[in-house]
């Protein structure tokens, strides 16, 4: 058995009981190994002296002061919690009337929607939506209008290319919604117009 393993078990034996098997091996080993025997005596002495070291003093007054300061801080935390607007939602019973209101609201919307009093658009948030696509549909097969509109869009993009900085452009490229409005055909037309502008 290597001395390092014996030393490890000796260290364990100082802190608590070890198995009978380990103890038997240690006893047999230190009979003949003076180094391990010395190690055992030394670590036992270290442990004994360490346990006799005076523990850092915490006086009753210090303890009381600690607890009192902690208590003040806890009360402050409680007050902070109650200050927030959302603190009412910490009470689980608030969810009962809130749920009733929400359900009633959904029922109202459903009833009016069925009657046709509500239009979907009234709920929609402003966005480009399908604006460009709809313009293309309105233009239909009128080539003059198509050309005029494409020129407008390409002129706007060219202007943006000149004035915008690259960081902004990168953000626009990342914004898929911007390009989702264009159909394949629309994008094709746009590409043609851009090419023409570049050449001229």
């Amino acid at each position, binding site marked *: 058995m290597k001395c390092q393993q014996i030393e490890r078990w000796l260290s*364990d034996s100082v802190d*608590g009981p070890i198995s009978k098997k380990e103890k038997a091996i240690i006893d047999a080993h230190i009979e003949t190994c003076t180094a391990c025997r010395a190690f055992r005596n030394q670590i036992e002495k270290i442990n004994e*002296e360490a346990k006799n070291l005076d523990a850092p003093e915490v006086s009753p007054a210090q*303890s009381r002061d600690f607890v009192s300061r902690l208590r003040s801080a806890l009360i402050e935390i409680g007050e902070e919690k109650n200050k927030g607007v959302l603190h009412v939602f910490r009470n689980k019973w608030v969810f009962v009337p809130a749920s009733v209101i929400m359900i009633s609201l959904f029922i109202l919307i459903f009833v009016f929607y069925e009657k046709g009093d509500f239009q979907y658009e009234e709920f929609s948030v402003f966005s480009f939506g399908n604006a460009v696509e709809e313009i293309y549909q309105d233009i239909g097969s009128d080539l003059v209008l198509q050309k005029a509109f494409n020129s407008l869009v390409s002129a706007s993009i060219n202007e943006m290319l000149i004035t915008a900085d690259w960081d902004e452009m990168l953000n626009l490229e990342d914004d898929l919604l911007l390009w989702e409005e264009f159909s394949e055909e629309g994008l094709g037309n746009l590409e043609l117009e851009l090419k023409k502008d570049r050449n001229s």
Partner: protein
Amino acid sequence: MEALPDDQLVAHARKGDVDAFTELARRHQKKVFQTVLWMTKNQQDADDLCQEAFLHAYKHLKNFKQRSSFYTWIYRIAVNLTLNFLKRKMREKKRSQIPVEDCFQGDNGTLRKELRQKLNQAIDFLPDPYKMSFVLVVFQGMSHSQASEVLGCSENTVSWRMFKARKMLQKKLLPYLGGT
């Protein structure tokens, strides 16, 4: 409140009962404070860290699953905060070199006094994880299993750290320990 066991106090504190949590703090702050003071060797730092540990525990009581005792849990919070604090201090290279003797008192026997002073210094110079294991096991009388719960590591790691810590102490204190 004083008659209630820890788990019931935890249940009350979870509902926002400040008195219940204050009672928990009153019960455990001394031992936690001593451990942190062993590590920091600075009363003010130890006080701040203990306050922080108990406040953190109060704010995160909902996360305490009670798989261990409150005592182990608060110890673990304090130990983590202390180890992080010491790491930060080391990084900032502003670790205050408060003489070890300031915090402790030796006895009158000159040789023994010298050994104790050297032992104090040697413990102070142990790397933090080894020192923390040593403080928990030797000074606070924890078993390897309890210390492993507090430190969030395996029992084997605690055993290994204790062995290495003792080897380091033995090496430093050899002239005072005698050969056999």
